[in-house]
């Protein structure tokens, strides 16, 4: 049996934090979810194009916004794979926006129509953003800029066995 299978969840997390390559699987999953969101926006852009053709491009800004969002989301997914810090920041901001607006729409549906929330809006505008935000938090050590910005925090982290570090870069030896 592999070592990974025998390891408890707590010790596995501790290893992951000190061995960032173990978190690459999470990066892959985040890429897939963000990429799927971008693909959905591509489909929505095409739907908006059809509506715009029917209305003589009376709502062209909507088409422009949606197409731009699709492009940015797909580029962000690519940036995440390349561990670009801007991609992580853009993802966090956009996922929060999607979550807030999506949750408000789900609540409005329940309140106004008096029906149970629909599965798809809940999945796409609530569950997926939450999953991405949780994942982004987990893989933050993979993004160099953010790691370098807070060196003291990184060095202060608990050791693998849960004990305090023996030395702190700013405070000196811990006695």
């Amino acid at each position: 049996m592999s070592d990974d299978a025998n390891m408890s969840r707590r010790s596995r997390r501790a290893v992951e934090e000190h061995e960032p390559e173990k978190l690459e699987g999470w990066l892959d999953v985040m890429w897939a979810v963000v990429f799927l969101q971008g693909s959905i926006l591509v489909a929505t852009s095409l739907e908006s194009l059809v509506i715009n053709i029917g209305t003589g491009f009376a709502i062209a800004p909507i088409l422009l916004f949606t197409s731009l969002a699709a492009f940015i989301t797909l580029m962000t997914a690519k940036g995440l794979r390349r561990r670009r810090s801007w991609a992580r920041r853009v993802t966090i901001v956009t996922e929060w926006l999607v979550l807030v607006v999506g949750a408000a729409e789900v609540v409005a549906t329940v309140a106004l129509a008096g029906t149970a929330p629909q599965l798809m809006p809940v999945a796409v505008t609530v569950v997926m953003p939450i999953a991405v935000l949780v994942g982004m938090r987990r893989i933050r050590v993979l993004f160099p800029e953010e790691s370098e910005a807070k060196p003291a925090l990184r060095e202060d982290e608990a050791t693998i066995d849960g004990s305090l570090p023996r030395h702190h870069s700013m405070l000196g030896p811990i006695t």
Partner: protein
Amino acid sequence: MRVAASLWFHADEPIVVPSSDGSGGATVLEGFNIGDNVGNPLYTVVNEHLAAVVMLLLLPLLTWMAIRFVRVLANRGMPRAVGIRVKVADAPLNRRVAALAVAWSAVLHAVLVFSHDVSFYTALYAAGAAALGWAAWSIVSARRRSAVSIVVVSIAAYWFLGAPPDQLGLFVKLMELLALALLAIPTADAQRRLRRMAPAGVVCLVVLTSFAAWIGAFATVGADGGHHGGEFPSPATLVPYVERLEPTPAEAAFADEVYWATVAAVGKYQDPSAAQAAGYDVGTIRGLDHHAQNPDLVGDGRILDPEYLESLIYAETPHGPILVGVMFETDGIWDTGPTDGGPIIMWHRHENVCFSLLPPAIAGIESPFGICPLGSLNIPYTGEMVHAWTLPGMPEEDHWGHLDDEWLEAYIRGLDQHDR
């Protein structure tokens, strides 16, 4: 042809569509009471899929229990459980999550076998459950290509056989698309063109699934548009479930009286500039059903009053705009319109309308993937409304409700000939 279409679009189940010709007498729509709003399945879960939704809610717990069970068995030294645990643990995270999504899809397909009456489709669900279960195990076992083929076939089958699409069906496809995205992760050493093209393939599948869902949703709409009671409405339209489709003499007389009073009242608005001067927000007239609303008359307490029309409807023609009809609206979102016209004046609502903020306009309806275009907000529920079509020569049965586009186009062509 009818049988072929029925099979193709899966229209014989799960929702019974009552006839709109009035000959059907009592209509049976399972799960609805008289007066309930009936919508398109695109935004709901059909009755036969409710058991699968319950299963979906239980799946996280069942998954956790299954993992614990395998772990306990593996710790006791059962060789098969040890093998499963090792394979799952050794698989990269993206493959584990993809396998989980496909396994959930398999379980939901299996539930559908038992929640439908025995038919061609139950056999399909059973085959789908077995194939997807095998695909989930193949993903864990690194037999990626065969697993991807099965999931792609499952998605493509939904395009052709999944109509009418509902929320559960779309959610299952979303899980399968997520699994494909997880298996399409670009790798640095991916030299093969097919592997490099995998993400583009996922985008294509998402787009095609969305378009297939639209086609499926509209293909099952009642023959004359869905604004009459007893029909299967188009996506984003809610019609009341009615007991009868034949009006009483009193209802017919009331409908006639209001209709002809409306025809007399709209004469002064044939010219859109007159409507604009009267407070109607005419804007740029485009298409065949441009609605010009008068904000001062919405919510004024006067409902179905021909002298206080909430909206005028114009059509764009080669010879300039023509007034084709009006739309009456109720005051509040929960108000219901007067029912003196019985099944002739059939009020309807809309759901999941995407309203653009820039510029303020209808931007479409919620997509099958549950979102509105960016820059628009989802209006989940509207007040009641009813159309009256006031063009000369309009067939009596089309005075209220839905306007036949073909009739309108023929009318406009007639105007062309008259001008020549």
